[in-house]
């Protein structure tokens, strides 16, 4: 088994953290994982993306030509990566910002109104966890509990403990939202 996942969006959408949490969950499960942020200009701002690979044997390339899954947090990200997703792959798109549908017919498209859900939860910053929850559901490599624990580990002790409960909930909401498209 080897899965490559690309997370893409604007800087500030928590893209890198979402990838890290997934990688950590994979590691905790005893799998091999890699996490690679994209190289942008040396300055901040603009777009951000990262690639996570999870496998049950040593991972060769941390770069993925044809990801098995894409999490597109905004429209430019979907435009950029849609074509590259592997046949039968997954596209989680943040439908709060991505107004167009996924064009590809050979992938499982999962539109998640991440911004709206996050707003409901009372903190716009958890959009990344909403999307991640949805991805986890579709991917099936780690469980909801595992991804929640990985998130906890990631936030713990970094002055973000009080956000853990909120993020648990965000993951759960994303997870169950994805159900709709997978049953």
């Amino acid at each position: 088994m080897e899965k490559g996942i690309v997370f893409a969006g604007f800087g500030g959408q928590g893209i890198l953290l979402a990838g890290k949490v997934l990688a950590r969950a994979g590691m905790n499960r005893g799998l091999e994982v890699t996490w690679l942020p994209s190289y942008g200009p040396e300055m901040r701002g603009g777009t951000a993306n990262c690639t996570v690979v999870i496998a049950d044997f040593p991972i060769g390339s941390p770069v993925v030509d044809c990801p098995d899954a894409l999490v597109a947090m905004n429209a430019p990200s979907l435009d950029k990566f849609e074509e590259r997703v592997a046949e039968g792959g997954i596209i989680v798109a943040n439908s709060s910002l991505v107004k167009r549908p996924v064009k590809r017919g050979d992938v499982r498209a999962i539109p998640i109104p991440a911004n709206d859900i996050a707003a409901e939860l009372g903190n716009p910053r958890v959009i990344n966890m909403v999307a991640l929850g949805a991805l986890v559901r579709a991917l099936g490599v780690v469980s909801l509990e595992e991804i929640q624990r990985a998130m906890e580990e990631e936030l713990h002790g970094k002055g973000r403990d009080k956000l853990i409960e909120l993020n648990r909930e965000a993951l759960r909401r994303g997870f169950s939202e994805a159900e709709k498209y997978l049953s």
Partner: protein
Amino acid sequence: MSVEVAVPKGYTRVFSKPRALSDAGFTYCPGCHHGIITRLVAEAIDELGILERTVGIAPVGCAVFLDRFFNCDFVQAAHGRACAVATGIKRARPDLVVFTYQGDGDLAAIGTAETVHAANRGENITVIFVNNGIYGMTGGEMAPTTLPGQRTTTTPAGREPRLHGYPLKISEMLAQLDGPAYITRQAVFDHPHIVKAKRAILKAFRNQLDGKGFSLVEILSTCPTNWRMSPAEAGRWVAEEVTEVFPLGDLKDVG
């Protein structure tokens, strides 16, 4: 690409992008004073009508893309070496107007020797020195000009002068030398200061046209991104904190 806007009827254009600037958008972060400074240099070039004989030197730093922004000839220099590169150009072709545009890491850390010696030789060049107290492009490390107590990625508990050095007063140092014609410190955190800074930049270029030699305009700038402040907060911080350590004004002017 910006489109030429037709002048609305009954109105006259009183402010627009200088001719010396291309249509390329700046790559600076939102609210970064680099953009103001870059524009002031372009305005000075316009006002002096020297675009077609000016060569700029882009540093390594957030201004590395400068050659895209300007319509004049440009050379990209190795980190810290802009003054040496400028010396090479100016000595080869004294008829050209040569300016460097450098951050504090570039000019006052790795480029200390090149800066000091170009100044001491009185090289007939214009130096625009953008002091934002941090390494912007590499992600917020301490600069020679970082304030005491200021947190950066390499001074996570704040700069401790006895350990990390004091804020380096390179302009004060250079003013001690016989070579420079003009050393001044300006800021651009509000309209009046921008107007003054512009005047200083103009003078620094005029000095070169008059053969007066080395002129350096230090400009206190912001780095909202790495200071982790809003652009407005960053501007206030310059006005209130940075100017305390780096007071504004002329440090040397041979007139």
